[in-house]
């Protein structure tokens, strides 16, 4: 944003931009150094891995050499998206279900979290049960979900939604309750309705909390879909992992894990990017 500073009344009042570029250059140098260290660490790790597999004659089904893993990875990625030998069909299926579950879990989480924050009776009557549900390991609920929703996509969506729901609900609740009392006083002084206060002040105030929840949940959604796939499904990344395991194709398992890790990182980055665009004010105020 280019902003002309021509406040004649109080020139000294103007926030100074001096020295900002110096700070920026320093930060870039530090960043390059950090990236360099990360790359260096990776190379050392991969080399040690490759050498130890060769020296100690570790069989492929225990620990495949990185070269073998990369070969499988390449074979899975360098194919047409519609090729059943590639990763894409399985990945698309898993991501689709995880995304559907994410949307459902996030929506329910924000709605229930808001209702609990706004209405004490709802908080009192719902909170203990949601915490009881949360303290159950979700993996333990998964078989039940499969009974209810079957071996199809329904179970995966349900598991992803279940995993996403709780962090979203808790974060929305905490974020709304953490709204600065001065902001609520301001809205009261303006005779704002409850809905206006919620919409104009509380939800944006809670946005940093909600985004933290969105960031956490994006990986939970993927995890939920995978759990459902492990317990029985016709397609998806989880199924591919199980098939590779069944034929002791450890390199295949490794390759898919790498793909999953990459997907997780990309999802994190995407949420982080949206977060920085939408709540750019959060880091710089207060």
């Amino acid at each position, binding site marked *: *944003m280019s*902003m*002309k*500073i*021509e*406040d*004649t*009344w*109080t020139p000294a*009042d*103007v*926030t100074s931009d001096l020295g900002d570029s110096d700070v920026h250059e320093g930060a870039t140098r530090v960043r390059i150094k950090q990236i360099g260290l990360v790359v260096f660490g990776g190379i050392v790790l991969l080399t040690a891995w490759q050498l130890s597999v060769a020296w100690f004659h570790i069989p492929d089904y225990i620990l495949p050499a990185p070269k073998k893993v990369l070969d499988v990875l390449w074979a899975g990625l360098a194919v047409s998206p519609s090729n059943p030998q590639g990763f894409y069909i399985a990945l698309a299926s898993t991501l689709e279900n995880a995304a559907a579950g994410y949307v459902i879990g996030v929506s329910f989480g924000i709605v229930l979290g808001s209702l609990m924050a706004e209405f004490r009776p709802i908080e009192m009557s719902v909170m203990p049960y949601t915490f009881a549900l949360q303290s159950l390991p979700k993996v333990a609920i998964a078989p039940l979900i499969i009974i209810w929703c079957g071996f199809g996509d329904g179970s995966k969506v349900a598991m992803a939604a279940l995993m996403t729901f709780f962090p979203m609900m808790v974060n929305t609740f905490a974020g709304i309750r953490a709204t*600065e009392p*001065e*902001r609520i*006083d*301001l*809205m*009261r*002084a*303006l*005779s*704002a309705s409850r809905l*206006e206060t919620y919409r*104009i*002040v509380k939800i*944006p105030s809670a*946005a940093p909390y909600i985004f933290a929840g969105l960031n956490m949940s994006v990986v939970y959604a993927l995890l939920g879909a995978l759990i459902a796939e492990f317990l029985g499904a016709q397609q998806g990344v989880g199924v591919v992992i199980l098939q590779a395991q069944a034929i002791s194709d450890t390199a295949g398992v490794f390759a898919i894990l790498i793909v999953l890790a990459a997907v997780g990182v990309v999802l994190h980055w995407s949420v982080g990017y949206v977060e920085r665009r939408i*709540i750019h*004010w*959060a880091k*710089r*105020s*207060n």
Partner: protein
Amino acid sequence: MTGMRAHNTRLREESVLPFPTPAINGDTPVANERAHQLIAIENVGKTYTTTIGARITALDGVDFTVSDGEFISIVGPSGCGKSTLLRMIAGLSAVSSGRLSVDGKPVTGPSSDVGVVFQHPTLLPWMTVRENIRLPLRVGHYPQVHHSRVDALLSMVGLGPFANAYPYELSGGMQQRAAICRALVRNPKVLLLDEPFGALDALTRERMNIEMQKIWLNNRNTVLLVTHSISEAIFLGDRVIVMSPRPGRVICDRRIELERPRNFKDTVVDPRYLRLTADVRDLLTEGTNE
């Protein structure tokens, strides 16, 4: 030019701001007509119960009235309930005893006749300066014509070039000026200032005092200013009200007969200013060890 006006003789509607005005231009009210009494505080008390069950009397028998267009400064020791008094006038806190009315109507809750500026600017950080100032109009569903005030107010306080900036891009003084604009945008009859300049450094504070005087001379709202600063209270006020330590009550109510517009250079050496400052300081330090 504004200094030519004797205060309390101008109607609020003659504001130089582009507020919708009834067609009374040139119609000057009789100079010695008793100004309309806008705020009546009759024997007002406030008690509250703390979380551990102790009953605390914050205010006891506060009694004074404020005329339309008057600038009242309220000083008192910390915890004397002066902020509580403002919150009650704003309708944010209920009166425990006594009667409180603004413009003849008992205060039962927040009203658009009253604008409040808090100690912290409390600008919403996700909105630009203009959006922040427009907020009261948005909440009250005011017709579009009122929105032209926003930019007029912004340029009046010198924030015109910053209308599209975000609050974090502004200094503390600029943020507080924006908060004052927000309180004025509905053109309230009463403007309540709760230690608005307390968080600013001394020089910025002096500039804000000059600015506040300019805004008031332009706008002629009735202002109640709560402050810790004796010099600020006397520099800005038509009257200074001194309150006792808790339970707060009015121990002194003095008219400040200094001509406007005032400036620091002349005012702080004026014998009347010095006399009043000394008197108020004596009242505030009475009973302490100093």
